[in-house]
């Protein structure tokens, strides 16, 4: 064992001291295409797993601001060109109807079903989601840098809104692993936003 810790904070970026997994590489490949076309935020299970929680997952939730059809067409075709397929269909016009309705869509790698990216369209009406989207925390594993919610926000969202066994365990993992950098004032501020979402 060397003297490294599980993570370190450098210039507000959380650096996780581990090698990339095949799951990370799947997410990285998708995000590299997505970010050519749009901003994004990775939320939920992958936040815990990427920081060391030992559990499996089938989907990676990614918040993406609603985009117009032209922009979506370019993104969709880029994903297909790069060997992803969409659960909801091959016809971009049909798939865009989901985005218009603010319904989630999913992408997996060609000839695979899992893991998949759950593409979650958001706008300002989804207040809690929009808040986390506009307050990203950068995190880095080797050469893969990506954006997640503030860790305190992610913990409270799992504890207050989601609340299942898996979510409570994820929150406990984040509270314990990041105990040295969590800020009480952020918990207080974010709890108000999250409780408003619950009402």
């Amino acid at each position, binding site marked *: 064992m060397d003297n490294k810790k599980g993570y370190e904070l450098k210039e507000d970026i959380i650096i996780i001291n581990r090698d990339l997994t095949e799951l990370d590489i799947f997410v990285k490949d998708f995000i590299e295409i997505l970010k050519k076309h749009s901003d994004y935020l990775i939320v939920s299970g992958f936040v815990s797993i990427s920081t060391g929680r030992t559990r499996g997952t089938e989907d990676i939730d990614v918040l993406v601001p609603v985009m117009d059809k032209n922009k979506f067409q370019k993104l969709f075709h880029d994903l297909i060109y790069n060997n992803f397929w969409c659960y909801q269909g091959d016809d971009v016009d049909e798939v865009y109807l989901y985005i218009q309705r603010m319904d989630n869509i999913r992408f997996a790698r060609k000839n695979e079903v899992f893991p998949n990216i759950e593409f979650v369209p958001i706008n300002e009406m989804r207040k809690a989601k929009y808040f986390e989207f506009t307050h990203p925390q950068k995190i880095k594993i080797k050469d893969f840098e990506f954006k997640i919610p503030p860790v305190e926000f992610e913990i409270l969202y799992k504890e207050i809104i989601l609340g299942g*066994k898996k979510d409570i365990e994820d929150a406990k993992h984040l509270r314990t*692993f990041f105990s040295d950098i969590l800020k009480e004032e952020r918990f207080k501020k974010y709890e108000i936003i999250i409780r408003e979402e619950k009402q």
Partner: protein
Amino acid sequence: MKDIDYVKLYAEKLKSNPDLFKQQKMLIESQLHASSSLFNNMFAGKNFKENARKYLKNVGLTK
């Protein structure tokens, strides 16, 4: 020991011993390989997307 206590203990150890990430990598990749193998066998030699979509609709993952 309850599951939640184990989660806390593991996270505490992980903070000071990143070598434990190697175990996590093995578990995650093992699950990915098992899933990939299962679906390749289920839909082998057929129209993968068409059959996968039927399956996903049946299990409620798509409408």
